[in-house]
């Protein structure tokens, strides 16, 4: 069996005395699409944010292709240098619930920013690349607009283009459609599905269970401070084995018709 692209080993996180999760192990192989589900407050977003060190895990490590780029010392501090963390974050792209576009830059500027500032690419080349990424998410004509002029769905697609521009090996999606008007959810899910079809590796925290079922190769259900149940979408979503997963799915399906 080949080396996992991403390995989480014994990852743990508390906020003060409040334990979020501990001992989380997860291997992600190239091409895996992992959907993380769980109740509100179960720590699924925190888990995702620990992977690229936006949250500092208390314990455990994150390896990419066997290289540990993030190591916690067990006391809430990282043993990694800023260089390691920047390297990690360039290889792991992230898309946020609230988009977090840079409002003082144009759409193309947002997408080109990492290439210019982090990669040192010339601004002309970076804008060319940004244009290509914008076309990929269907926003080729919006490069010169400022984010304030876009709809929520467009903003999120720009955020996806911004992450893609850095050529990440893994994409993290943190509830990418939760802040959207229901009518705009489809366009964003469409882009994510297209990336899935290209065989990209991704980890997706979502409440869109139907989407997770169709797109994910594996579902991870988070509860009781850790990974509670995991398996194929068929196993976890259609035939959940454990009570909290069953309860969660029942609650979600209550008002379906």
């Amino acid at each position, binding site marked *: 069996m080949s080396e996992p692209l991403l390995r989480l080993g014994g990852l743990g996180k508390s906020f003060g005395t409040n334990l979020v999760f501990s001992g989380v192990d997860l291997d992600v192989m190239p091409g895996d699409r992992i959907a993380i589900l769980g109740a509100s407050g179960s720590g699924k977003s925190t888990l995702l944010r620990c992977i*690229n060190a*936006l949250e500092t895990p208390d314990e455990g490590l994150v390896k990419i292709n066997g290289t540990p780029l993030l190591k916690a010392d067990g006391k809430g501090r990282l043993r990694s240098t*800023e260089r390691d*963390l*920047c*390297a990690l*974050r*360039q290889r792991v*792209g*992230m898309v*946020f619930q*609230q988009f*977090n*576009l*840079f*409002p*003082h*830059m*144009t759409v193309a500027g947002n997408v080109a*920013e*990492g290439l210019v*500032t*982090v990669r040192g690419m010339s601004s002309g080349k970076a804008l060319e690349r940004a244009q290509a990424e914008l076309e990929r998410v269907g926003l080729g004509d919006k490069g010169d607009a*400022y*984010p*304030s002029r876009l709809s929520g769905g467009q903003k999120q697609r720009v*955020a996806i283009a*911004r*992450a893609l521009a*850095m050529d990440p090996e893994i994409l993290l999606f943190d509830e990418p459609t939760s802040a959207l008007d229901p009518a705009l959810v489809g366009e964003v899910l469409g882009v994510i599905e297209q990336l899935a079809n290209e065989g990209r590796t991704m980890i997706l925290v979502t409440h869109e269970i139907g989407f997770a079922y169709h797109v994910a190769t594996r579902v991870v259900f988070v509860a009781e401070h850790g990974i509670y149940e995991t398996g194929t979408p068929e196993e976890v979503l259609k035939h959940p084995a454990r009570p909290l997963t069953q309860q969660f799915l029942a609650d979600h399906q209550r008002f379906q018709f």
Partner: protein
Amino acid sequence: MTYHWNFASVFDNWWALAIGLAGTLKLFVVCLVFGMTLGLFVALGRRSHRRWLRWLSTFFVEFFRNTPVLVQILWFYYALPILAPIEISPFMAAILGISLNSAAYAAEIYRGGIQSIEPGQWEAARAIGMTGAQTLRRIVLPQAIRRIIPALTNRGVEIFKMSTLASVVAYVELMQQGKLIASLNFNPLEVYTVIAAIFLIILYPIVRVTYAVERRLARSD
């Protein structure tokens, strides 16, 4: 009682006022650049991970913000040479007093501006691999400065007016020259009225420029 205003005696000495104006402008520009720049570094110091740097920056702010600028200028001019073997010119004493005081105020303005930027902006920048310094320079400060332009403009205007305090150590600026003219011609009311008018005439266009800058930076809204 009727007072006979005599502005002619002020304008007869226009050259003295011109020399004073040059001194005022020189002091203003130096203090503006120095105070605003130092203020940014002090603000960053207050947000540092290093405890001693935070402590030092906070001490700086509280010390210079809570003592009178007039006393600071006097102190730098008269007391510093006693404590250390250095000669200090009136210009230097005025620069130190006004700049350090302004830096303390500006630091708090910058700090407020930086803190007002949503954490998501830092996160998005870090998530594409930017370092803390790059995030600050490219993402956070450009947005923060846009928000604090009105407050910084206030500070700039205040610096311009604080330059009159340099007359206390006989630095040649408008106020000092005004005092001189007034003592020769016994016309303090006219002289100080003219000085106030000069301040208004110079400051108002500068303030208008900052409004224009503000509008230009707001084009992304």
